[in-house]
């Protein structure tokens, strides 16, 4: 455990704060994509409220695809990944810690942004609460599942678009349940069912994704 905290967690945290600007870029992208919708569709408050949850989630998925790429990229190209694999630690555990750090530094700042997004898209307080809950449960799922595809494509020179092609279909259920939770909140309906399903998917991903990521990284090493 200590090796994971001292060797991986602290290292990735130190790196993240040294590359702050790179971390900020996906968030700025998210903000700009969301700005496009009122401009493209029209600023009517009713329209915005209707499309708001979907827009925020779509923007979150797209920006996560951009942010995800750096998860293993540097480690692969500078050879750190080889050293992890020979460290005697379980690669799955290392991958899980790296995904955790990645989630902390790329999605937690989204929580800071979210009141602004809610304001932009005219969400009610109930909708905002539902949005936050779906983001808290859903974004770790994005990180975990995304990391599998990142592990597979990390060795490819131009993996960026491919990563999006692989992941977008996989993220569709999350999009459906998350936006419908916020829609239900808008109508003052209960949305526990949707949250429960997202939670179940998250549990499944937490249990299985680290092993899939480890396998993917081993495949990329070959």
């Amino acid at each position, binding site marked *: 455990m200590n090796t994971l905290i001292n060797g991986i967690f602290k*290292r990735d945290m130190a790196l993240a704060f040294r590359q702050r600007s790179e971390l900020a870029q996906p968030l700025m992208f998210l903000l700009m994509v969301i700005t496009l919708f009122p401009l493209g569709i029209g600023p009517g408050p009713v329209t915005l409220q209707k499309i708001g949850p979907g827009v925020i989630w779509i923007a979150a998925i797209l920006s996560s695809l951009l942010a995800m790429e750096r998860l293993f990229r540097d480690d692969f190209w*500078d050879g750190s990944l*080889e*050293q992890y*694999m020979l460290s005697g630690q379980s690669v799955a555990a290392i991958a899980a810690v790296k995904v955790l750090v990645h989630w902390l530094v790329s999605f937690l700042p989204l929580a800071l942004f979210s009141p602004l997004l809610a304001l932009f898209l005219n969400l009610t307080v109930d909708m905002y609460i539902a949005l936050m809950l779906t983001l808290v449960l859903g974004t770790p799922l994005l990180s975990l599942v995304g990391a599998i595809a990142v592990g597979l494509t990390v060795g490819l020179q131009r993996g960026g678009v491919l990563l999006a092609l692989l992941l977008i279909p996989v993220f569709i259920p999350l999009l459906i349940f998350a936006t419908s939770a916020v829609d239900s909140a808008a109508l003052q309906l209960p949305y526990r069912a949707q949250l429960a399903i997202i939670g179940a998917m998250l549990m499944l991903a937490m249990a299985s994704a680290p092993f899939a990521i480890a396998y993917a990284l081993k495949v990329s090493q070959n």
Partner: protein
Amino acid sequence: MAGLAADNLTCIKRDRVLFSDLSFCLSPGQLIYLRGPNGAGKTSLLRILTGLSAPESGQLLLNDESLDKVRDSFNQQLIYVGHKAGINGALTAMENLRFWCAQHGTDFIAQRAYEVLARLGLVGLEDVPVRMLSAGQQRRVALSRLWLKQATYWILDEPFTALDTDGIELLETHMREHVANQGAIITTSHQPLSKQAGPFTELVLEYRL
């Protein structure tokens, strides 16, 4: 047989047979100099020995036990320095070494690390992001692991790349001392090992079509 034994290894890359039915043993107290033209499969062989990639057929034995069964204890006894240095450019030399030691479960003593870096001629560069260092200096940071972790087996892929003559001599001396202390080394190098490195066994891979 004590040591790391390769038993009938065959490696196929991109549908080309690099080597087949290769058997040899790397024993403590032995330095193997792996030679061969470009594309002969030297790096592939070293990566198979570390366990990073799997051979097409054949197996590895550590002290007569299948390596897969004793992988963890082998990893504790192994230092691999590959083509890619495994050094992150945004971190300083000290940070790189500290995190590497933590990952490998080796105690990190800052004083010792400063000494090692000083011996490798990196005085004053310990807290500069590694990206700012020259290629030879980066290589020295990567090689400083050989001083920081106690391990029997060293697997080195072109360790002399980008080193100046002082650096080469330093490393060869360290290799000789390691072998004298019952260490085992397998290394590739595009330039022949000098006398500094001590006695060694040659293993030659041919280029096969």
